[in-house]
């Protein structure tokens, strides 16, 4: 029994100062032992991505990040994608933003799925006021963008949100995330072997987030196994700090979707 997956995509991205347009299609076949991929030259008529929206979004970010801040990395993209897996067809339009804003020696990382930059503005403003590294506050809450990055490994109750299709065209059904093999398949590229994953994670709310405690508003490094490095706002003070990943005392879900793994909704978490 073999499975055939096909994908057609058109994307436009700003990477630094360059605009890159990519049209690509390919197929993946998988049987019990071997996963094979190859390009498809027959293209579907996909709607062209909005290059002007990509350029405008990139320009907006460039206007936010001014010296002494450094826009170290800028990826802004939009893509139109069609999928087919064993006769099931579906399509989607995606937007992605990855920004690294440096104020040496620190760097804030921002990943978004919309061209809305309130978080970028807030982080850039805070970076301008950032002082030296300080010990982690006893209690700290994480902003939705930071909590979303932590969600897949966070030891709290969470649910998989319903979605029309997974990487094999099957429906993603809302259910509680358990310590078991995820029922759905994640396929970030036709060239990559699909893997099981929980989709579109959402934190189950519990406890009470104390809005008065210091807040980690941006990741300063990818999530570690035992620590997260964040930019923290505590009253008038802004500083980088390394927070041990410990028991989460409260969680609140938000409606913003973030492109971490197979997707995660915003999660305000409090340690």
């Amino acid at each position: 029994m073999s499975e055939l997956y096909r994908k057609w995509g058109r994307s436009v991205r700003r990477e630094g100062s360059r605009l890159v347009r990519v049209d690509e299609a390919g197929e993946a076949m998988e049987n019990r032992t071997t996963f094979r991929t190859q390009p498809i030259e027959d293209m579907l008529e996909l709607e062209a991505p909005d290059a002007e929206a990509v350029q405008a979004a990139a320009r907006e970010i460039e206007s936010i990040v001014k010296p002494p801040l450094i826009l170290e990395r800028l990826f802004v993209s939009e893509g139109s994608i069609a999928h087919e897996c064993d006769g099931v067809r579906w399509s989607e339009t995606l937007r992605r933003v990855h920004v690294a804003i440096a104020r040496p020696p620190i760097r804030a990382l921002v990943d978004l799925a919309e061209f809305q930059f309130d978080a970028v503005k807030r982080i850039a403003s805070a970076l301008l006021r950032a002082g030296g590294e300080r010990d982690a506050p006893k209690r700290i809450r994480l902003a939705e963008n930071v909590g979303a990055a932590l969600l897949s490994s966070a030891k709290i109750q969470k649910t998989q949100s319903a979605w029309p299709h997974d990487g094999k065209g099957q429906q993603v059904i809302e259910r509680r995330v358990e310590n078991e093999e995820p029922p759905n398949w994640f396929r970030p590229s036709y060239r990559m072997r699909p893997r099981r994953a929980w989709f579109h994670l959402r934190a189950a709310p519990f406890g009470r987030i104390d809005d008065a405690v210091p807040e980690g508003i941006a990741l300063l490094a990818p999530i570690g196994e035992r620590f997260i490095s964040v930019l923290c706002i505590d009253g008038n003070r802004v500083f980088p700090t390394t927070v041990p990943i410990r028991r989460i005392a409260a969680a609140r879900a938000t409606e913003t979707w973030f492109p971490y793994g197979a997707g995660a909704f915003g999660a305000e978490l409090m340690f």
Partner: protein
Amino acid sequence: MVDRTPLAVRRPDPADGQRPTANDLFAMVRRDELWVRGVLEESRINYGQAVERSGEIIARNRIDDPTALARLRDACEEEMGRVRKLIRAMPDARVRGVVTATSEDFESTVAITLDGVSIVTPHQSASADYDRLKSFLQLSTRHSALGTLPMVWRNGSAAVLLHEAIGHAAEHGHAPLAWPGWLRARDETRDGRSADLIAGELPRATRRESFRDVPMRRMTNLIIEQANAPFALPEERMEVHLVAGGAYEPLTEIVTINVAISDIGPFTIRASRAAIARSLIGATGDPLRYPGVICSREAQELYVGSSAPVIITSEIL
């Protein structure tokens, strides 16, 4: 809204209507196969072209010139046939063969993993490096306090340390440091153009992982040499044989090196490039080819040839 032209009628040429020249056009075919303990697990073919003009890159997974496509694809398939024969002789390993033929370059590498330790090597050296890896894995380890002893970097492994501390610093345009006068570090393109990395020159080659990617000035073949360096093997020392990976943090100029195989087992070095420059205390012999560095920058992974003589550093942990 702009650029709503249906894909089927879209022109591959730049918007100004001119035909791409050889300098504008990048075409690539790649074959890769993953074999695990003698069984083919993954097989890919990938091809496409990119045309660059006025800061814009138009890429697609089609090569317009059928002759070029056939030539590049045939070169890849022939080479993959040779690589497959090599892989068959490594039935206990996880092995990935990657062959890339482009309008600018041809590269064939084999990544071999045994007991969780990996090397990446040009196909010509794969059999010998497979045997070397097996012999490294037989090395016994002893206990020693980290950071208290000089380190002897054998088998060209110092190339990884200096790839991070000199090569990436040059790529980022960081100011040259005072390295020992006996040390030479240059990057060579496949057509023989050379950049003096110690002097802060950028690598000459513009490279990209695939036709979808933005080309960047990246190292191709890092050659570390010594000229009349002092050399006295310390009686008490640690010996480094194989490095799992490294990183250069451009904001802090901190180098991280994860040593995979040494006579005291795996360990991590984290030091500023200035500290590494101060730590070099001797070297001997000609550059030794190190079995492979896959260099990742801006999410683009490239193979970089690497060689270095035996080098001694003082304790830098």
